[in-house]
């Protein structure tokens, strides 16, 4: 009996392990959550962004992005791999190094582009 219970609980634990990542993936993060989240874009670590608390000042404030990047694809490319334009930059290549998924890079681009 005891054995049955423990094997059932083992199966349940295993099942939970495999299901959990799926559920986590299923819960969509908003564009803002991806941009601000410390375990996602964490853009505030270095950039002032209107609406974000406790920003760093390592990079420039993210303002007037439409004026600075008339072509939105250029902004996306900068987030995806900033070393392309400046090999010395401290900015992590978020897309190239897989810090964010392609979709998350899109989300950050969309969010920042409204600023």
């Amino acid at each position, binding site marked *: 009996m005891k054995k049955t219970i423990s094997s059932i609980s083992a199966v349940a634990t*295993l099942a939970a392990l*495999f299901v959990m990542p799926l559920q986590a993936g299923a819960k969509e993060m908003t564009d803002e959550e991806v941009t601000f989240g410390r375990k996602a874009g964490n853009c505030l670590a270095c950039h002032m962004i209107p609406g974000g608390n406790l920003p760093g000042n390592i990079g420039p404030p993210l303002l007037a992005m439409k004026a600075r990047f008339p072509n939105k694809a250029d902004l996306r490319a900068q987030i995806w791999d900033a070393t392309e334009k400046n*090999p*010395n930059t401290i900015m992590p290549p978020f897309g*190239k*190094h*897989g810090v964010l*998924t*392609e979709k998350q890079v899109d989300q950050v681009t969309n969010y920042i582009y409204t600023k």
Partner: protein
Amino acid sequence: MKKLLITALSVFSLTAQAGFMDGAHNWNNGSSDPFKSAIKAAESGYKANLAVNMAWRDTGSMIKEAKKLNAAGKTAAAVALANKAHHQSMNATAQTALAESAGPRF
């Protein structure tokens, strides 16, 4: 009919791959066991990174996790994760060449 079947099958497999790869390149070099070749590539890349002190934080645990997934029969997920680990090691290898000659910019 045969042709149609092949097309349908290859479309299916491509879609499946694209889904699992998460946009990453498919590093499988055509061996009969896709996991074996994927994990081998990841492991040898990671080992080379370790030897020159350039390994990334998560590559080792990704390799471990990929092996667990494979053992649990989740081959597709295991291959995808092994490919991700390999991708990390390739990026670390690219960094190594630059880091070797790094110096002050002043």
